[in-house]
């Protein structure tokens, strides 16, 4: 990674901790990018909605992805086969994907805080990654299981539930066939 001592910027978490990062890493966040480019960079940017634990994870993600992008740019890409299109899969993508998969192996609370941070800071890659992880937690579970897993307050009346089931019959049908043992009480 090009460690040429580029411009650094300080990010301050909601609980007062300061993180010094290279500007290019911070700019992975479009929110921060706006502040730097349009509001003329201050030396320290306070992030009132992100605590230090989450901010350090976010910075970890941004650092990794900036480094991966730099590494990919300096490699030859005259590969036999696919044309370089918007859908190209670079050779280093596999490693990055593995890293990403490990990165989101966190407890639910942290994951959802990461989702909120990615949303607030406008980091599309991180938002996509964390939302996919959340979706993976939902996938394959019955409504009852989902409610339990996420501690959802079930404030829906049986009548309303019945109405929704009728309306969306197709979506619930197969489930009945394959998950006959599950009770939707």
């Amino acid at each position: 990674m090009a460690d040429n001592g580029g411009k650094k910027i300080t990010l301050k978490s909601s609980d007062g901790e300061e993180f010094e990062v290279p500007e290019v890493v911070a700019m992975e966040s479009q929110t921060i990018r706006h502040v730097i480019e349009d509001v003329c960079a201050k030396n320290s940017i306070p992030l009132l909605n992100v605590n230090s634990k989450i901010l350090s994870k976010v910075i970890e993600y941004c650092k990794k992805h900036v480094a991966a992008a730099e590494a990919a740019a300096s490699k030859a890409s005259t590969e036999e086969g696919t044309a370089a299109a918007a859908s190209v899969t670079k050779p280093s993508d596999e490693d990055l994907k593995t890293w990403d998969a490990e990165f989101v192996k966190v407890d639910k609370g942290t994951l959802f805080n990461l989702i909120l941070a990615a949303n607030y800071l406008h980091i599309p890659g991180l938002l996509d990654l964390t939302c996919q992880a959340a979706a993976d937690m939902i996938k394959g579970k019955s409504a009852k299981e989902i409610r339990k897993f996420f501690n959802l307050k079930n404030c829906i009346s049986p009548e309303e539930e019945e109405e929704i089931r009728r309306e969306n019959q197709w979506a619930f049908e197969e489930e009945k066939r394959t998950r006959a043992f599950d009770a939707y009480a």
Partner: protein
Amino acid sequence: MEAKTFDLISDLPGLVKEQILVHLPIKEAIRTRILSSKWRHTWVSIPELMIRNEDCLTCSKNEELILSTKFIQFMDWVFQVHSGSILKFSMCSDHFSSRAVDRWILTLSRKQIQQIFIGLDRYKMPSGFFMSHTLTHVYLEKCTVKLPAKFNGFKMLRELGLKYCIISEEHFEKLVSSSPFLENLSLELFNDFNMLRICSRSLRKFDFWGEFKYIHLDTPRLAKVCIRKFIPTYDMRYSSLVNDLECLKDVEMLDINKHFVMDLAKGGSINKLPIKFEKLKEIKIEINVEDQKEFDLSLDLFRSAPLLEHVWIKAYSSKTIASVVSANSFSADSRNYLFECLQTVSIFNLSASESALSLIQLVLVSAPALKKVVLSKINSSVFFNKLSQIEKLSKEAQIILC
């Protein structure tokens, strides 16, 4: 800070909840509607619809996978009740109903659709598609594209990708030239064109993988080009090949594969290219270093690009062993600006041959701004020793083996 009774997910901002649902198969996404009243309406305004094979297929009585008619009915209902815009739609499936997809695309055209990805075998793009004036990104695979007579272009289109599609030369040309903001064009598995003609005042990036006999580019803003041909085209005159290169003379990045190089190298004896690549900064090229013609062609190219900064060479070898290739004709000409701005050279797959040595030597003695030469997959210490003994013009230059 994770209380056992804390509801983590329902209070996420609506847009975020929608993003999560987008990553689920449609059925499961819909089933979230019964989780609680906070989830009932999330799905109805989801901004992206991605239909996967698993969504639209069902098991028939004899365990075959077939298109589910219930899925079609359901999607019809979805399009009816959905509120708001659908910005992204993608559907790739082995089985589908043309009429149904036609209906859905028509609805999408009225829902401010921006990005569309369709991968359906021989699906004929419907009129609704051509009426979607808000489209910015279009990717079609295996589709048939026939422009309606009164088609005026996609006024907001920025990226277009066509893979293995059926489209006539005339319609393709019109599709591109009538999109005034098109910046990225990607054509994959395109083998039917005699004349590949692209006229666009906005195009910046062009990727091509397939075959063409002739190419004509009227693209003043084109900066990055990548051309990969399937097989070399035989039976061509040199002048037309020079034309091929001529239309690329204003690009900043050029990436060409071995088959295209073979075509270009057929120009006979060493003919200095009468073209100057005034803006070319990066070249990625696949050549057979042992073939004199290709060797010379690549040097011709380098010599015609006075601002060239970065070169990537992927070396390949053919079965015939040519005689030792030399670069002598170039060092003698002191008026050429070969490698004046060159900073890095990366060579992959190079064998430790005399021709290779000759090429690298030329680089080392002609490039005053050279910073590094990266060679991969060479494990001959003899070769490396010979290299280190060459006197480099640029004192900063490093040779890196990896």
